[in-house]
């Protein structure tokens, strides 16, 4: 059983944030959009940039740079919103650029090394080494923790 899973292939979406490449399993990704008009939602945590209209559905947007405590950057032509879904919960992640869709073998995923960089460990579920690239697999559950938005609303 375990053998089988390890042999399995996984499609991942690779995106850029500052100087590192991150990855998300494709089954969590609904769409990749160029930057749209974002309506600010007052009194929420800073990393929630607001909401957008994605084909009639209102979707909250998280700026991953702020979420990961990296320095903010002005959105450019390359900036993308990755629409992700987790247990019926939709959200958009703002990233510097979306680079690639690639297949990886499950057994190439390694547990996160102790030193990954500036991103808090809790957001990372593992790393993948691909030739000379190092892809950081995101832990979507942690990134999209609705508790954190609620808490901040109460405090506000």
């Amino acid at each position, binding site marked *: 059983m375990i053998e089988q899973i390890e042999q399995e292939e996984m499609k991942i979406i690779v995106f850029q944030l500052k100087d590192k490449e991150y990855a998300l399993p494709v089954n969590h990704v609904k769409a990749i959009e160029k930057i749209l*008009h974002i*309506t*600010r*939602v*007052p*009194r*929420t945590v800073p990393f*929630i940039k*607001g*909401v*957008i*209209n994605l*084909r*009639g*559905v*209102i*979707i*909250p947007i998280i700026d991953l740079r702020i979420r990961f405590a990296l320095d903010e950057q002005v959105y450019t032509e390359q900036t993308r919103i990755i629409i992700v879904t987790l247990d*019926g*919960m*939709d*959200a958009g992640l703002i990233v510097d650029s979306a680079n690639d869709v690639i297949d990886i073998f499950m057994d190439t995923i390694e547990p996160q090394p102790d030193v990954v960089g500036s991103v808090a460990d809790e957001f990372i579920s593992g790393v993948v080494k691909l030739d000379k690239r190092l892809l950081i697999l995101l832990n979507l559950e942690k990134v*999209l923790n*609705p508790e954190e*938005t*609620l808490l901040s*609303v109460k405090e*506000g």
Partner: protein
Amino acid sequence: MDMNQYLEVFIDESKEHLQMCSEHLLELEKEPQNLSIVNEIFRSAHTLKGMSATMGYEDLANLTHKMENVLDAIRNQKTVLTPDIFDVIFQAVDHLEAMVMSIADGGDGKRNVQEVVAKLQRIENGESPLSSSNDDLSLPAGNPVKKQEQDSIYDEFELTVLQQSSDQGFESYEITIELRDDCLLKGARVFMVFEILEKSGEVIKTTPPVDQLEEERFDQSFKVTVVTKESAENLQKKIMKVSEIDKVIITKLDLSELRLAVTKQEEVETQSKTLISNQSSEKIVEEKKTKNGKPAGNKTIRVNIERLDTLLNLFEELVIDRGRLEQISKELDNQELHESVERMSRVTGDLQNIILNMRMVPVDTVFNRFPKMIRQLARDLNKKVNLEIVGADTELDRTVIDEIGDPLVHLLRNAMDHGIETPENRLQNGKPEEGTIFLKAYHSGNHVFIEIKDDGAGIKRNRVVTKAIGNGILTAQQADTLSDKQVYELIFASGFSTADKISDVSGRGVGLDVVKNTIESLGGSVTIDSLEGEGSTFLIQLPLTLSIISVMLVEIQNEKFAVPLTSIIETAIIKKADILHAHNQQVIDFRGKVLPLLFLKDIMEVPTVKDEDDFYSVVIVRKGDKLAGLVVDSFIGQQEIVLKSLGEYLTSAFAISGATILGDGKVALIIDCNALIM
């Protein structure tokens, strides 16, 4: 095999079948002799059994199986329906419902049902379901002859006659007369038997009816019920003198037993006398339902509400594009483009109506659980109540339907508990023993009204006033100036609900503030009318749909917000110089009232880009009786918008009740005035 993919269908259909069971049981209770209803129930139960066995829910299947056995016995007339048996079957259905709910909530559908299974088993064995004390209710097992003979049912009139005759010392007999196989002149024999009977007593009832007897439309035997002072033996001898008669069986009638068997039927009869007008409309609904329920004539399909939402979302995109196209066509001024865009606008307009209508559900889906609830409450409280439902086919948006159930349950319970008096009290006050609760739904304009009316005790003004003064909600002076209606409104005050003793003082007010809040959160309102001693009426007004609301769009700096019209009293422009200060709070004098000013710019933390001018645009909003002025930069105008939630991730943001998409495709937030006013 993986059953999960069928789970949703299974749950939906089980609920449907159980609902059918409940409805039919209530019907059967009204006409216990109608075996076709038993058949319907049996069919639902049978399907349910099959489904749950396939899905592997053994407990569910077992209980259904037991229930089915009892139903089978009833339909084959092996068991006579008594109120006790009804109770047990209802209990079984309740358990089944609980099991299905548990499965729907992700549980395993297991439940301790031994008690009810044992009861069902006893009924199946022909014993009384309660085993002891109530022996007189069920027929002793092992006396099939008697059972068979008891199955003729007497109506209220016949029973009264029987009762009166027995009071005067007459005996009632049920006589079964069997003619010989070779009897040629059956009609003549019947005539002769009748002549004998009429000399010695009075014929109350015949089975089959007299006209059929006269036309010889019966087999070899017929049944006659007589009241007489003669003994059974004498009667038998006299009848046996008529030639060509094979057998005469005479049974003495036990009136108390008959009474019990028909109590339920009686109720129906009284009901039908008082409510003839409503029955027709009810019937129409019922007919409709049976039509829908039959798979053969089924012209509807089940659609997941999420798919409808998706459809609506896609459609809105289309509407936004339509707006852009209209704009472009105006600018280009091309006749052909004009025409096709115009045609497209018309078609999309129609489409919009259709899509919105798809979300409409008849209010019956909420109402249908009430008859059973009222029946149970009536038994628990020892009250006689007739629930009358009108307009169950009135349609409401699905989202409203989902929310309205609890407030209605609350109001109905209130009416049962505190409105309707005990049968003894009612008789004393010169009212019919049986109270009536009237549940009515109807459309009017852009709203749906739901009325809950009872002919109970009504609300006692004095008691409400006393309590209100006691609670400090009101002063004695204020109380005198209030109209009756204003006094009744007080029972919605939250202070009333928190006081435990209120239920035995005014009889109403326990948790009614919750009802009011729920209804108001749906954009509706509730009013009370009452006449002491004659009953109360609660009138609920609801918007047809929650997904479209009227708002006032306002602008603050470069951002647009929507304020629901239901919260807005009016708009005003005020001079900065007119602002007063009180307790660090800026206020204005609005028609003699002091209103606090809320600066939306600060509350919403809008970044400043433009300079302010000397005038403020103010939206006067309310929450209940409290008013406040929302300061904005400018009004854009009134608009109908489609309400959307902020999504699962952002379930709640401060003072924001949702969002909408404007004509330019951008999102505007809807301000929740209730959160702004304390």
